[in-house]
């Protein structure tokens, strides 16, 4: 399965994931404390500069990842044009785009495995509740393995529906797909127990 990590290797790929996440948390908090359009504009330009250090292909992917924001930007723009509060609208839009672009930058420059290692480290305090990092790692691995398996199964269920009927299966795949997930869960649990358990 494809991750959102950029195939274009840039300098930030070599930074430790923990450091990038800590800096991102600081920067995002900062963005939400700022309310002057000028400072936010500077922050936006700085983020743009940061992304540009990755080159043209990197910039293109960054822009593609920002695409889901367009409807929100449009609504905010129209709203503030209507009320006449242009400065307020600029603040909201700049802050939103900058915060999302910065977060995407960290995602694009960090491998999935490194990110999961940071999450496991962050989840260490949860060990007192019985959530060992081994169990967490197993859970992550199971989800990643089973998404393609289940996608394939849903495809097969709707294919066999189409073989029997002129229309598409649509919501009728839901029951067999959920049932298959429940049965898989039981079988994988047995297989895990047979191999010495989850711990």
């Amino acid at each position, binding site marked *: 399965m*494809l*991750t*959102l*990590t950029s195939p274009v290797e840039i300098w930030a790929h070599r930074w430790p994931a923990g450091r990038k996440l800590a800096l991102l948390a600081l920067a995002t908090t900062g963005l939400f404390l700022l309310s002057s359009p000028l400072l936010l504009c500077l922050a936006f330009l700085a983020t743009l500069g940061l992304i540009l250090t990755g080159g043209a292909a990197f910039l293109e992917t960054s822009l593609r*990842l*920002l695409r*889901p*924001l367009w409807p*929100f930007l449009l*609504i905010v723009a129209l*709203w503030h044009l209507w009320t006449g509060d242009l400065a307020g609208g600029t603040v*909201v839009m700049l802050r*939103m785009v900058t*915060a*999302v*672009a910065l*977060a*995407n930058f*960290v*995602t*694009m420059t*960090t491998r*999935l495995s490194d*990110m*999961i290692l940071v*999450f496991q480290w962050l989840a260490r305090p949860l060990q007192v509740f019985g959530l060992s990092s081994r169990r967490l790692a*197993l*859970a*992550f691995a*199971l*989800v*990643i393995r*089973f*998404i393609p*398996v*289940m996608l394939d199964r*849903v*495809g097969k269920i*709707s294919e066999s529906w189409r073989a029997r009927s002129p229309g598409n*299966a*649509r*919501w009728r*795949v*839901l*029951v067999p*797909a*959920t*049932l298959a*997930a*429940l049965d*898989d*869960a*039981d079988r*994988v*649990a*047995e297989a*895990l*127990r047979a191999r010495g*358990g*989850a711990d």
Partner: protein
Amino acid sequence: MERNLTHIALFAALIAVLGLVPQISLASGVPITAQSLGIMLCGTVLGARRGALAVLLFLALVAAGLPLLSGGRGGLGVFAGPSVGYLIGFPVAAFVIGWLMERTTLPVGTAATAASVIGGIGVLYVFGISGLAVMLDKTVTEAAYLGMAYLPGDILKAVLAGLVTQSLARMRPASLLSRG
């Protein structure tokens, strides 16, 4: 123990799959994804604790960089965007749905639909609309107008969650952990 773990993991995968599969267009023509239906099913089938954990596991993988949210969205950016309230509300919604399922004595199908409406619409919208209000700097009333665009689709999904849960209860009575 293993059974808890695999159920949580497989339902996290189910949420992802329901968001990725385009064939499950619930009403023809209107692109409603079944992702929030997956959240509802986590609650109605797995119960409060396991359901919420499955949703949290799914969100952790989204944050780690997998494009699993409907429309191929993912990464840390979605947690900085305007719909972050819905993401925070997802595990809470699954927990509330599961909690209601575990406590009510209504017939399974009715209980699952009612719990999905309360948790998957009521609770989720409180989080989602508050998130929109904060991120877009609007009042809660103004944000609520935006959020209501999803209401018809979500009511349909709550009814479907009830029907699916009822079918599962008939086919595999033991598998409905929320009624264990």
